[in-house]
């Protein structure tokens, strides 16, 4: 039962965070850009970094879903 549980937990955590690889990579890149913006722009940017992150992530989700829709259309038409 222990090997079942360890493998199960590992797979669950992986699937939990990165079921869709491109979305996960996009999130990590958005977080990195926000972090860099906060460092490079300094305290003057503290009012905008959060909104910058929000804009990047919502754009990411919309484009990712659009790509998923197109992929599904290709899948059912082939």
């Amino acid at each position, binding site marked *: 039962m222990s090997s079942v549980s360890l493998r199960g937990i590992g797979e669950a955590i992986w699937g939990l965070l990165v079921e869709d690889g491109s*979305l996960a990579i996009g999130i990590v890149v958005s977080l990195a850009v926000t972090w860099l913006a906060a460092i490079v722009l300094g305290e003057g940017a503290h009012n905008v970094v959060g909104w910058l992150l*929000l804009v990047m992530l919502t754009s990411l989700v919309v484009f990712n879903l659009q790509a998923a829709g197109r992929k599904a259309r290709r899948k059912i038409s082939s």
Partner: protein
Amino acid sequence: MDIGTLAVAALPAFVASAVEFVEATTIILAVGVTRGWRAPLYGTIAAAATLAVIIASLGVTIVTVVPEHALKAFVGALLLLFGLRWLRKAVLRFAGIVALHDEERIYLKEVAELKAQGLRQTGFDRIGAIVAYKAVLLEGTEVAFVVIAFGAGGAAALNAAVVGAIAAGIMVMALGAVLRHPLTMVPENWMKFGVGALLSAFGVFWFAEGLGADWPGDALSILPILGVFLAASRLSVRMLRLILPHGAEVAARSV
């Protein structure tokens, strides 16, 4: 810590846990109906104990060891990875691209598989216990994650999140035990969508706070952030219905 802050930890943990335990209950019911209730009961208790150890060790370590700003950024990043994934999947289901989670179909499939494996008349039913253990552990890992993330605000928040998760688990499993039928009436996709949007909004708020950002109105900013995610989701559903007006219902992992 005030009631509002504790509710912020307990409520998402409650809803997320309810969704996950509905899925686990379907499997436990299938095992109980086909093979008897003793083995799945032991399997469920063993999985709950494993989850308690995970939450206690990871949760307490994170809350007590990691500095506050780093903790907010770390938890924010994890919430975004987790929440946006749920949001994406719920939107794909609303648009008909991915089939809705069908508890009845999963239940019947599981019953057929368990019947095919046969049942020894004597001794402990190891298969029944393992199937129940695995179902509760796998679904519960997501619950543990949400509890740790929302409990990262401190010991009181962690306790509130744990209470929310346990309450949902008891409620859902008791309902399943009374009805002896999969909980098909629970609007799983709506709940998953709501929790996904909420986790994403908290993720943005906490990650930016972890970097030292100032939000106007402090925690009240979570509401407009949530509004942006909801608007983007609505826009996405409309866009997907234009791309595939009749839906597709492909496997979630195929898109």
